[in-house]
């Protein structure tokens, strides 16, 4: 496997423009002769499908939800970054580029990130033209707020539901094309395999989740926009349906998977309350502006927090990071919470929680001010926990939230499999080892609206793509493989439910490959995961048949893939002997417990090539070249 990033030469500022000119075009009259299959309908998938159809391509779009409007992009809260400089506070394309590279701990590709910053401005224009109701000032202009990792206000938002409004914008553009017949939409349809013909991605095999019927979609190019893999941890802030199946099955066909160990753990989530829990709920990071994080000084202190006197509390973030205090960055805040809980000082059921206390702020500013700022969040917290956060401190704990790793793509967003393009969270390209807040929405829409419409045309115009029908032997073979897997799952008829395996896998990944990792733990995980996988295939119980609506079967297929993917995650985490961004290796830290990067040996993207289930994948390195930004230490002191 050869990794060619296809980054255009020349100055950073003009790479994209020149590349746009140099790419081949498809004649408008010829576009309708090409078919593109888009898998996923979140921000990246919906914006790509709509835009490709507007250009004249024939598009098939599939999603596993009952409507494209429900993809998990909808749950994003905070906002979307763009280098508009509307606030006149010194923002620029270059500054957004720089902040993103630095925020990613210098593990992203410069050229991709610069292009992202460039097109960020177009995204906001496009969304406003679609009728997305962003927050506005009384004068009628768009409002901005600031977010972590930036010293300018460049985040556009729609209350606490920016993702919803942006997704409904992209969905409306998609719906318009569906209504015109230029996009054929297939909801409740899950991709189960990729079809490769003569070395090129030429379609997918699917299962209709309502009837159980297998489906075949032939295309000239395939676009995966299938999101991230946080649910390998079972409990995460992701929707319960989010899965790695599409990406993982592409990986098994030879698409390299890059940097799987870069996972983002968000510090402020509502802690787990019991084994029955199905997901974790994020509480906006903004709460840390007015809340103070603490735990009791002594272990096993079960007193009501309000009865614990001041001198028996440990405000550990303020103590350890006096200059950043409670606003320490996500990775630091998450890891510190884990440390105090490991010491037995955690609070709440199970001892995995820390207090986020608003008592001082309420005393200083009054309850009404706090209600004005965070009322909806306090209400959500109260609904879920049954506790009143105005009267007693919130309990929070970190949770898996976003995955920076994903299928490796070149500058054109094409994977190592020709014709297979990967967008949004499913690819690895823009966030390095850590993503800044409000940048996920930006990347999804940049990829879908403004990058893939150009680069896919270049692919289609430069390759000979003889017509492939769905009765091609490769389609039959792919469908055969998918059916065989379904039949195997149904045939086991063991004694354990799918969810119990997912819970055990999630705990294993969380314990050994979560917020802090070490070589021994990862080696242990690499022993335990194959054992759990064997047990799964001997003892899982999937009721019902494949020829019906069968949610247990859907989940079983996804968990089976997570059981293989988890090994890839741990191999990558063990191989990367450094700490950077969301990947913290306990062996690699400074005397003060800060992440210690190793630029001499690990300044590369690790792209893994599948080499058989249970075997260590082959590592390929894309060396990251920093021509414009000097590598520096991220310091929070």
């Amino acid at each position: 496997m050869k990794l060619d990033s296809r980054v255009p030469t020349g100055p950073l500022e003009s790479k994209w423009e020149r590349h746009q000119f140099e790419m081949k075009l498809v004649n408008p009259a010829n576009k309708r002769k090409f078919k593109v299959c888009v898998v996923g309908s979140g921000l990246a998938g919906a914006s790509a499908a709509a835009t490709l159809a507007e250009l004249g391509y024939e598009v098939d779009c599939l999603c596993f939800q009952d409507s494209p409007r429900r993809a998990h992009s909808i749950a994003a809260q905070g906002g979307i970054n763009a280098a508009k400089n509307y606030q006149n506070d010194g923002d620029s394309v270059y500054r957004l580029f720089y902040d993103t590279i630095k925020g990613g701990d210098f593990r992203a590709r410069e050229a991709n990130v610069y292009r992202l910053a460039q097109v960020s401005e177009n995204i906001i224009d496009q969304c406003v033209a679609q009728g997305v109701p962003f927050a506005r000032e009384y004068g009628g202009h768009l409002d901005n707020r600031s977010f972590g990792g930036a010293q300018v206000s460049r985040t556009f938002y729609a209350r606490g539901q920016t993702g919803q409004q942006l997704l409904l914008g992209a969905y409306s553009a998609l719906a318009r094309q569906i209504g015109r017949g230029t996009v054929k939409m297939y909801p409740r349809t899950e991709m189960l395999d990729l079809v490769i013909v003569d070395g090129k991605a030429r379609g997918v095999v699917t299962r209709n989740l309502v009837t159980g019927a297998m489906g075949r979609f032939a295309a000239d190019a395939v676009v995966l926009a299938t999101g991230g893999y946080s649910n390998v941890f079972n409990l995460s802030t992701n929707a319960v349906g989010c899965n790695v199946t599409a990406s993982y099955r592409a990986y098994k066909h030879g698409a390299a998977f890059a940097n799987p160990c870069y996972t983002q753990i968000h510090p402020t989530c509502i802690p787990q309350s019991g084994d029955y829990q199905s997901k974790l709920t994020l509480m906006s990071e903004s709460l840390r502006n007015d809340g103070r994080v603490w735990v009791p000084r002594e272990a096993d202190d079960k007193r009501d927090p309000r009865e614990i006197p001041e001198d028996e509390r440990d405000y550990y973030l303020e103590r350890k990071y006096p200059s950043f205090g409670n606003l320490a960055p996500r990775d630091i805040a998450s890891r510190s919470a884990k440390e105090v809980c490991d010491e037995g000082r955690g609070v709440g059921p199970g001892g995995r929680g820390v207090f986020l206390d608003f008592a001082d702020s309420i005393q200083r500013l009054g309850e009404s001010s706090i209600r004005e700022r965070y009322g909806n969040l306090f209400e959500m917290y109260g609904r879920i926990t049954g506790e009143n956060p105005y009267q007693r401190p919130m309990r929070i704990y970190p949770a898996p939230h976003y995955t920076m790793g994903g299928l490796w793509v070149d500058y054109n967003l094409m994977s190592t499999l020709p014709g297979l393009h990967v967008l949004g969270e499913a690819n690895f390209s823009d966030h390095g080892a850590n993503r800044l807040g409000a940048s996920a929405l930006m990347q999804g829409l940049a990829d879908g609206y403004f990058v893939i419409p150009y680069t896919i045309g270049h692919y289609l115009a430069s390759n000979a793509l003889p017509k492939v029908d769905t009765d091609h032997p490769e389609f039959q073979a792919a469908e055969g493989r998918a059916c065989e897997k379904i039949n195997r799952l149904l045939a086991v008829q063991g004694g354990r439910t799918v969810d119990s395996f997912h819970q055990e896998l999630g705990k294993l990944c969380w314990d050994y490959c979560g917020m802090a990792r070490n070589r021994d733990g990862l080696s242990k995980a690499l022993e335990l995961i194959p054992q759990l996988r064997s047990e799964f295939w001997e003892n899982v119980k999937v009721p019902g048949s494949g020829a019906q609506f069968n949610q247990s079967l859907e989940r079983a297929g996804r968990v089976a893939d997570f059981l293989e993917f988890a090994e890839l995650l741990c191999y990558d985490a063990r191989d990367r002997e450094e700490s950077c961004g969301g990947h913290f290796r306990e062996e690699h830290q400074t005397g003060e417990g800060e992440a210690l990067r190793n630029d001499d040996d690990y300044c590369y993207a690790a792209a893994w090539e599948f080499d058989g289930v249970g075997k260590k994948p082959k590592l390929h390195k894309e060396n990251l070249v920093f021509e414009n930004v000097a590598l520096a230490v991220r310091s929070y002191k």
Partner: protein
Amino acid sequence: MRLTLEVWRQLDAQTAGMFETYEVPDASEHMSFLELLDHLNESLVRDGQEPIAFDSDCREGICGMCSLVVNGVPHGPQRATTVCQLHMREFNDGDRIVVEPWRAGPFPVIRDLVVDRTSFDRIIEAGGYVAVNTGGAPDANAVPIGKDEADIAFQAAVCIGCGACVAACKNASAMLFVSAKVAQFAHLPQGQPERKRRVRDMVGQMDREGFGGCTNTYDCEGACPKEIPVRFIAEMNRGFLAAKITE
């Protein structure tokens, strides 16, 4: 908590359904309602039975996928709450709880508590958008929009498309859903060029899907997890009339 659930079981749209009774002896008050069903399903599967099918995804009240009628009320007894955010502490030990799917002709049952809501998508496809292609949009601040109008548009735009409004309505009317999308664009300058066409086409599609008309009982507003007000229906009716008489 010990609970008794009466759950609607139905193989598919062609087969008649019926209530089945399940005892849950060990529910926790901290469970969400969907986690209670997960918990019950785990025990059903272990006992060799087929689990209860129900829709959910984000489980934080924003994707609009969950859709249960609990004790006769879409999304259950707590106001402004989707059923995924409803927690068992809203119930009492020993309660008998009736769980049904959305019941409306245009939402046929797929299985058990899962219904087909693609009729909503077809209404949006008929006109619930601003017809603008990607690229060439003017600068986002080129057209100022007063905060008050923008806030009204936002109040309509928060619809999650769950269909509780339809399930709550004795006429199975979708007018709250349709009017929310119509109002979002009617209150924004970007929506003006297609204003008449949009309301006409969306209402036309709504009728073709078989949704009923509004008779002002306001159950939709009461059931809406996002508290979208019924005055948008009145606005839509005015807009529809204006579109028709100037056609």
